[in-house]
């Protein structure tokens, strides 16, 4: 089961947190405050059986009598200290014990969470230009990183290679407005193709039939975004089915990596598409632009603004498909939640209201994401106010 509420005490760097997930939940906070560990924990709680099965399939072992070895197998080498004697994890009010998670014999191997990790760039091997499978990672790499690479490899070999169409843009994948936005903001007019050179398959960008750009010459943003896009392909099947199998929750870490704000806005359209298809979505971010979108959607809902405001926010056209996408983003039943992982205290704070005039500095400054910019602006103002003349 995907937790609707997760209560944590002394889990990794998190001293205390009470997280109630919405349709869209955003985690923010400085590095090493436990955002990623918490998201990986959600995956572990929801997909215990599936994780056991995958680890077993690829020969990853752990000692059930020593649950810390299971932590290493899931969260990665050296992470055994995140679950201590004093750690308490409650999922929907029920205490979760580590030895129960580590114990073999979980029957339900259906996967409910699809995880796009921050290290997604590792999913493509720069030497070969092809996808890394589970075995191609170091044994100590986090499960979600290895699993993501394997899923992309399967997607490429079992689905994308069978089609003669470009990988992107592809008519049956993604809504036209989203394809157009991505094409302009991230792909710069290039198409994404699979090809074989001297017997080696590889994924390339193409300007025309004669010019292929291999992975190593892609821009940083393209390298980060293309694995994310392919992850979205996994979640957004080309058929009439709106969702992928048993998956209910999509976790995307640092959606903004390497992207210009305009491209972040295009990437956020993928999130809107996921929400429209009734996926639950969890993001972690260091980008104020992601919070700008979340804030705007909250305020649009409160003021009962029309779907045209959402279209204006993303520069979407005025057609039925785009209007439906925008309307779904305003659905009051799809709760938007934002949590701030505070470094100094180890607390996870609910700042969902994102009120810049909040009495709480951590909410007003959006967990530090706008605080710096505001601080810079106010210092400039102070310098101007004390200059020779006011203008």
């Amino acid at each position, binding site marked *: 089961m995907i937790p609707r509420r997760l209560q944590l005490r002394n889990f990794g760097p998190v001293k205390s947190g009470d997280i109630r997930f919405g349709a869209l939940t955003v985690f923010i906070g400085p590095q090493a405050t436990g955002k990623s560990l918490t998201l990986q924990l959600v995956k572990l709680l929801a997909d215990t059986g599936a994780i056991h099965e995958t680890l077993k399939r690829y020969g990853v072992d752990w000692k059930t009598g020593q649950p810390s070895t299971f932590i290493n197998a899931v969260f990665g080498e050296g992470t055994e200290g995140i679950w201590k004697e004093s750690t308490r994890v409650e999922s929907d009010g029920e205490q979760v014990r580590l030895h129960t998670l580590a114990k073999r014999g979980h029957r339900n191997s259906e996967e409910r969470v699809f995880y796009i990790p921050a290290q997604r760039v590792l999913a493509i091997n720069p030497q070969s230009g092809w996808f890394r499978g589970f075995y191609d990672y170091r044994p100590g790499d986090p499960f979600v990183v290895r699993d993501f690479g394997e899923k992309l490899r399967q997607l490429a070999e079992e689905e994308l290679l069978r089609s003669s169409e470009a990988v992107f843009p592809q008519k049956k994948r993604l809504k036209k407005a989203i394809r157009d936005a991505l094409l302009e903001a991230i792909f710069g007019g290039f198409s994404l193709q699979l090809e074989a050179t001297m017997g080696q398959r590889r994924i390339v960008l193409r300007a025309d039939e004669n010019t292929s750009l291999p992975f190593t010459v892609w821009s940083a943003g393209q390298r980060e975004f293309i694995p994310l896009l392919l992850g979205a392909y996994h979640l957004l099947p080309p058929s009439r089915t709106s969702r992928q199998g048993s998956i209910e929750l999509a976790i995307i870490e640092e959606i903004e990596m390497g992207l210009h704000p305009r491209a972040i806005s295009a990437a956020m359209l993928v999130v809107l598409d996921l929400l429209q298809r009734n996926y639950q979505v969890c993001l972690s971010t260091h980008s104020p632009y992601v919070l700008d979108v979340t804030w705007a959607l909250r305020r649009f809902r409160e003021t009962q603004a029309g779907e045209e405001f959402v279209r204006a926010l993303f520069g979407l056209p005025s057609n039925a498909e785009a209007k439906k996408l925008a309307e779904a983003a305003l659905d009051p039943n799809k709760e938007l939640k934002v949590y701030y992982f505070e470094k100094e205290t180890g607390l996870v704070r609910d700042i969902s209201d994102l009120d810049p005039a909040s009495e709480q500095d951590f909410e*007003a400054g959006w967990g530090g994401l706008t605080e710096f910019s*505001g601080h810079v602006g106010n210092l400039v103002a102070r310098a101007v106010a004390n*200059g020779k003349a006011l203008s």
Partner: protein
Amino acid sequence: MGKPSHKKSRFYQAVTATPALVSAYCPGLKALQPADKAKIICRNSKKLTGSACLDKALKQAMPNDPRWDYAIGYQRDRTEEIVWVEVHPADSGKAIREVGKKLDWLTNWLAGGGQAMNYTPRRLVWVASGRSSFSNNDPKLRSLRQRGLEFAGGHLEL
């Protein structure tokens, strides 16, 4: 007996030397409306050297002008600064224009009738009176900041 300490302050001298504000001086934050006072956080009230409500004092003389709200005197370290505070809604683009006009008004007034109060160090601060429609990094706020105005959000800590 010497003068009470607040009467020695630069702020007191400046307010009482301004013809339109002769009787506007108040000790501490007493010139502020209670709701506005609640938005100012001052951990050490001894550092306050007084306050004046321009809006009230100038209402009769300039009824239709976009008058500024308050001036507050504050002793920061060894320097006494003047903090110009405007408590105003921050709920729309219209508010940016309104506060911009108030800033124009204050600039002109300091160059004219309020010359005695035209000293530094100073701060010009907009405190939101309700919920804010602007994030702290809103580019619209940048244009006001470039003109010397700080945006403090819902409260100002002196």
